């Protein structure tokens, strides 16, 4: 009995493994023969992107084989997978990751420029100088404040205020060595200059700033009252707001001469040498529309329109104000500042 079970189990396991390989092989053949397919690596959360993927499939008949990321993987996920697959790319379109990591990928020659007409139609919307990534669907990096512990008069109004001693022990940011906050810190080094950015980090250190597991973690800690204020994104803050948590969103640095709020917009890029270039272009064109931005603005992403027509039509969630002043970041320069910023973070925040 045991013998039969053992043999059956092993045969079953081997057959399944072989079937999996064959299935992948045959489906690849089918891709090239009949059903058009596009491979999407999606660093934007699945709950935000899945509706649009479904709609694209319905409209075009092109099957989207998507691979998603998790915040736990930080930028160690899909960005590194694309880098690692460079010699034999599997991915056609990369959605998400932000301008910072897309610029890194572009510098590594992992991305290819979008069609010229699409870049031109993009107008003043954010994009790489060579069109290797296109920005859309904005997300603001805001200050989230607990309204139970801070009265309106004492709330912070600038990223710099997080270094104010009156918040000592109760401010938080996502770990600046990783993901979006690494991009944010590098952007501050680019915009403020190294000296001022280092001063800001020193202020955070003196304030015992908590380095949280991510921006959603900052939101949760502020909503619970453990922290009083911190930096998070509009998409994360919205979750706390509709959950009726005691929090308020503040758009930082909006005064005259101030740097403005960082816009961590979505990005989409064509991967160089991707296996399905025609379908990839169709997906790119589908995403770069005002219709897409409207869906994203109404969905859990709560994004702000960036494309020229979307700005004209004022595509944004109702709770986000119209004229938020955004930081003017040269992402190519921010990427150059990345090693400097990382060194400073280690020296100042981590005492290394």
């Amino acid at each position, binding site marked *: 009995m045991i013998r039969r079970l053992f043999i059956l189990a092993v045969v079953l396991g081997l057959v399944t493994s072989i079937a999996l390989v064959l*299935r*992948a092989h045959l489906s690849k053949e089918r891709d090239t023969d009949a059903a058009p397919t596009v491979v999407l690596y999606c660093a934007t959360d699945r709950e935000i992107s899945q*509706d649009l993927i479904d709609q694209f499939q319905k409209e075009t008949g092109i099957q989207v084989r998507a691979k998603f990321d998790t915040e736990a993987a930080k930028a160690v996920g899909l960005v590194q997978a694309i880098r690692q697959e460079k010699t034999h790319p599997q991915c056609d379109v990369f959605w998400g990751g932000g301008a910072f990591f897309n610029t890194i990928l572009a510098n590594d020659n992992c991305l290819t420029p979008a069609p010229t007409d699409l870049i031109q139609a993009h107008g003043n919307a954010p994009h790489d100088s060579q069109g290797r990534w296109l920005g859309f669907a904005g997300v603001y990096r805001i200050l989230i404040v607990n309204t139970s512990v801070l009265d309106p008069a004492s709330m912070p109004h600038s990223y710099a205020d997080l270094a104010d001693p009156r918040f000592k022990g109760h401010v938080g940011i996502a770990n600046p060595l990783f993901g979006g906050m690494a991009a944010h810190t590098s952007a501050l080094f680019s915009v403020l200059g190294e000296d001022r950015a280092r001063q800001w980090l020193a202020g955070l250190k003196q304030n015992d700033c908590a380095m949280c597991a991510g921006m959603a973690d900052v939101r949760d800690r502020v909503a619970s009252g453990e922290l009083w204020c911190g930096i998070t994104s509009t998409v994360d803050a919205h979750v706390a707001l509709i959950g009726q948590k005691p929090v308020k969103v503040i758009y930082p640095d909006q005064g005259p001469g101030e740097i403005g709020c960082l816009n961590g917009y979505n990005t989409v890029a064509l991967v160089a040498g991707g296996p399905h270039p025609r379908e990839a272009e169709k997906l790119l064109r589908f995403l770069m529309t005002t219709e897409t931005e409207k869906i994203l603005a109404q969905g*859990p992403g709560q994004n702000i329109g960036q494309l020229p027509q979307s700005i004209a039509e004022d595509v944004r969630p109702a709770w986000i104000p119209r004229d938020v002043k955004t930081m003017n970041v040269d992402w190519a320069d921010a990427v150059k500042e990345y090693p400097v910023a990382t060194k400073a973070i280690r020296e100042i925040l981590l005492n290394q």
Partner: protein
Amino acid sequence: MKVRIKIFAALAILLAGAIVFSPLLAALGGTGLDARHLADAFGSAPRPLVRSIGMAFISGLVSLLWGVPFALLVDRSSPALRRILWSLGLMVLMVPPYIVAEAWIVLLGPVGKISRSLAVLFGLGPHTTDPIELARFSVPGLVFTWPTVGIIMGGCLFPIVALSVASAYRRTDHRVFESARLAQGRRGVFQVAVRILIAPSIGAALLVFAATLTEFAVPQLLRVRTLGELIYEQIQNGDLAAAAALGLSMLPLVVIAGAVGVVVLLRSRSASMAGLEGEVPKFTGATAGPPGQLAACVMAVAAITTALILPIISLTWLTVTAKLPQASSTGMHKLLRASGFFDSLKGAWDLAQNDAIRTVILAGVAALLAVALAVVMARIASSAGWGSSLGALGAGLAVPAPVIGLGLIALWDHGAAAAIYESLVIVLLAWFARFFPLVVFLVQAALARVPRELENAAALAGRGPVERIFTVTLRGAAPGLVAAWLVMYVLSATEFSTTVLITPPGQPLIAPSVVNLMRRGQDPEIAACQFLLLAVVATPLFVIAGTWLARRAFR
């Protein structure tokens, strides 16, 4: 004949090494080692490394503190109570540590539901009616510290120690305790017990130490900078070789801890899941009286509080206290985002049901193949007298999860091999690289507990070598093999650090999907997602283990 066995054994060990270490070697070789970057990376390593060792040490200690008394008290209780308490104890292994850490923050953090209430109860809260001052009150707790990481990991992994101790205890002829009592009284009993139980306890605690050393998710949640974070940093910088090399710095520790642990366990012939095995020696101790039963219950509750009771309380709290606003977003995920627990659960299930089914099948197949392969390898290696050399596989536990993922890409994303990379087989390979060493250890332990005399008797009765394996060895080792299957299944189904990197497009698996959904969620959504993950992992286990337990165990 002897030479042929040695050749086979060498091939088996090489194959096992290739399965476990090929991703690391590909990562090390793929990008080339840059001396300057390497020196830079190692320059910042000592402090995080010391912290990693510290938390692993605490974890081992905690697993001993919970595991040893749990095993001894529970094993002396009545069969029915023992069955219940062991089931509860083993359920701890199914809860992913990152869910436990989240529960600790919610309940015991600076503004935790329990910690703050207790502080107020003991008069430590602010003596004022000012609502802002009241809201600002927080407990300067210990949650965000490295010892807490150790406490949580120890709490999550204590059943490993408990099972090992229970195995040794059950194997003991209890007349030795009686003799010791007559000769030297209680002191004598204590001395004998220590001699019998120290090896399996320490051996299992060393395994817990090794497993904690490489943990990334819990330290990250608790804001503790460990070597794992440093490795992630290197990967983000695109320096995969430096990341792999940093992983190597943990290697000696993991090898020493893991190998010593395994050798000790093998020498003490402690099977892997004694609690499930129902092996009873000829002379057993008497069942404890009511005070002993009560003590067993108290001990069991205390032991499972860290990693089972607190997460359940946290999940329930989140579910019950969640406010239910109207959906303020559109699309298929509005239910998931802004509704109650059951709607969220339905939403999560609608979105991830295919992922769940795919995961259950794939993890089941992975566990099956891993156990089968481990049986063959362990058998061949021990026949050649090289069984302990498989202990070197323990070094694989020191390889960081993302390094395995990226190494597999470097290894398989080429030419004809890409067919493997584009299929779910790559996920099987990743899970093998991560967990195969554990399966090998468990299978070795399970096979070691089958008395050689039985096989010799079967040989005298005319059974051939293959027949002996099937009729005697596998039958005798079956409980341990099932345990190995369960461990591989649970670890694979909940793994996400490597899985997220190498899952083929269009075929997502449940752990990354759920972690992704949880990330931005509101309370009911988080609770629903955690529940979904646990349910998916647990359902097949309950079906298999329940049937098996009802038939075989705890007699």
